[in-house]
C-alpha cells in the first residue's frame, strides 16, 4: 500500500464489504471509495496477465470498479463483493481478448527486460525464457490463459479457481492440460 495516497478515504474502515455495499445503495456514495481501496489491487496481476499489458489491466480494473458500482443493486451477496467484482473484471477481460484476439502486446516486464543492459548470461537466458512464456501465454485461448494465470501466476488450487469461475475442476484440468501442450510447442526453443 502506498502511504498517503488515499486522502479522504478511511483505510481503517472496519465495516464489512456487505455493510459498505448496503450503505452505498442507501445513498452514501462516498463509502464506495473504501471498496475501491480494498479491492483495486487484488486482481491487478490477473488482469495484466490476461490482457498482456499493464495499461490495459489498469483500464480493465477501473472499468470493472465503475461497472460494479452501476450494478451494485444486482450484487446478491454483498459480503462476497470481491468475488462478484472478479466476475465483472473477468467478463471485461474476456470481452477484450475476443475483440483484440489478433493483437498482441509486449508486457511491461518484457519491455523492461529489453531495456535492462547488464545481466549475467544466465539471468539473460532466464529473462528471455520469461518473455517467451509471457508471449506464449498470450497465444492461448482466453479460457486456457485464464486457467494458466490463476493456477500458475496466482498459484490458486483448482478447487478455488472452480469457485471463482464457475467451471468444474475436471474442465479446468482439461483446459490446463491442453494449455501445457500448447505451451510446450510454443516454447520448444526456450526450454
Amino acid at each position, binding site marked *: 500500500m*502506498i502511504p498517503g495516497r*488515499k486522502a479522504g*478515504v478511511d483505510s481503517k474502515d472496519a465495516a464489512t464489504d456487505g455493510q459498505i455495499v*448496503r450503505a452505498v*445503495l*442507501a*445513498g452514501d*456514495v*462516498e463509502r*464506495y*471509495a473504501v471498496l*475501491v*481501496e480494498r479491492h*483495486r*489491487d487484488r486482481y*491487478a*496481476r490477473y*488482469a*495484466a*496477465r490476461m490482457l498482456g499489458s*499493464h495499461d490495459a*489491466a*489498469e483500464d480493465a*480494473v*477501473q472499468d470493472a*470498479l*465503475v461497472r460494479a*458500482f*452501476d*450494478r451494485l*443493486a*444486482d*450484487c*446478491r*451477496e*454483498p459480503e462476497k463483493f470481491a468475488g462478484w467484482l472478479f*466476475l*465483472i473484471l473477468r*467478463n471485461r477481460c474476456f470481452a477484450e481478448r475476443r475483440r483484440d484476439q489478433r493483437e498482441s502486446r509486449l*508486457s511491461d*516486464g518484457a519491455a523492461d527486460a529489453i531495456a535492462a543492459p547488464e545481466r549475467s548470461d544466465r539471468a539473460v537466458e*532466464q529473462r528471455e*525464457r*520469461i518473455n*517467451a*512464456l*509471457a508471449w506464449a501465454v498470450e497465444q492461448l485461448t482466453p479460457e486456457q490463459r485464464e486457467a494458466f494465470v490463476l*493456477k*500458475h*501466476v496466482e498459484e490458486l488450487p*483448482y478447487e478455488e479457481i472452480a469457485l471463482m469461475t464457475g467451471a468444474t475442476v475436471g474442465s479446468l484440468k482439461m483446459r*490446463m*492440460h491442453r494449455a*501445457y*501442450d*500448447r*505451451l*510446450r*510447442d510454443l516454447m520448444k526453443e526456450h*526450454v
Partner: protein
Amino acid sequence: MTKTYHQLVKNLLDGELALADLPPELRAEGEEALRLAGAVDRTPVALSPALDARVMATVRRHAEAPARRAWRWLAAPRQIELRLRVRPAVLAGALAAAAALVLLVSRPQAPIGAPPDVMFVRFVLHAPGAKRVTVAGTFNQWDQNAAPLVPAGTGGVWTTTLALPVGQHQYAFIVDGRRWIADPAAPAVNDGFGRRNSVVAVTTQGARTL
C-alpha cells in the same frame, strides 16, 4: 508435429507429483516442464495511485444520473400511513403449480393526493424439507436474511408478504441459507454472471412476474 506432455508430467506441473515420482524415462521431460513453469512471472502489478480518484469521479457522475436518482427515490424507505384493502390471495393457484410464485395481495391505500408507490406482494415457495427459506432481491439489496418466509401449514409451502415500491424488481429464493432458486413459475433473466433471477413488475394496478 506438436509433442504433448505425458499425463504424469502434466500432473507434475499441476503440483500433484514430484520429479522424483516420475519413472526414469520421464525425468528429462519432467525437467523440461519444470523449466517452463520456472519462467512464470509472478511480479506484482501496481496500479496507478490515481486510479481511485478516477473511479470515484466517474462513480459520482453516475450516482447523479437521473435514472439512479429515480431508483433511489423508489427504493428509499419512507413512512406511509396505510389503510389496507386486502384482496384475496390466489394461493390455490400457486400450490397447483407446485412451485414458487409471487402474487399481489393488496395495495395500501395512500392518503388522497399522494402517489400510491408501495404495493404488497406475496411470495410463495413450495419447498418440502426446507428448514429455512428467505427471499432476496433488488428491493432488499440481496440481503438473504432480510425477508424470511414462514411455513404455511405442513405441506412444505412457505410464504411471506413484502411491501415493494412500484417498479421492476429482481429476486430469488434462498433455501437453507445456501441454495439460490429462481422462481420456476416466472421467467428468469440472466444476471450477467451465469445465475438466474426472477423478475416481478409492481405497478399501481398490481404485480406480475415478467
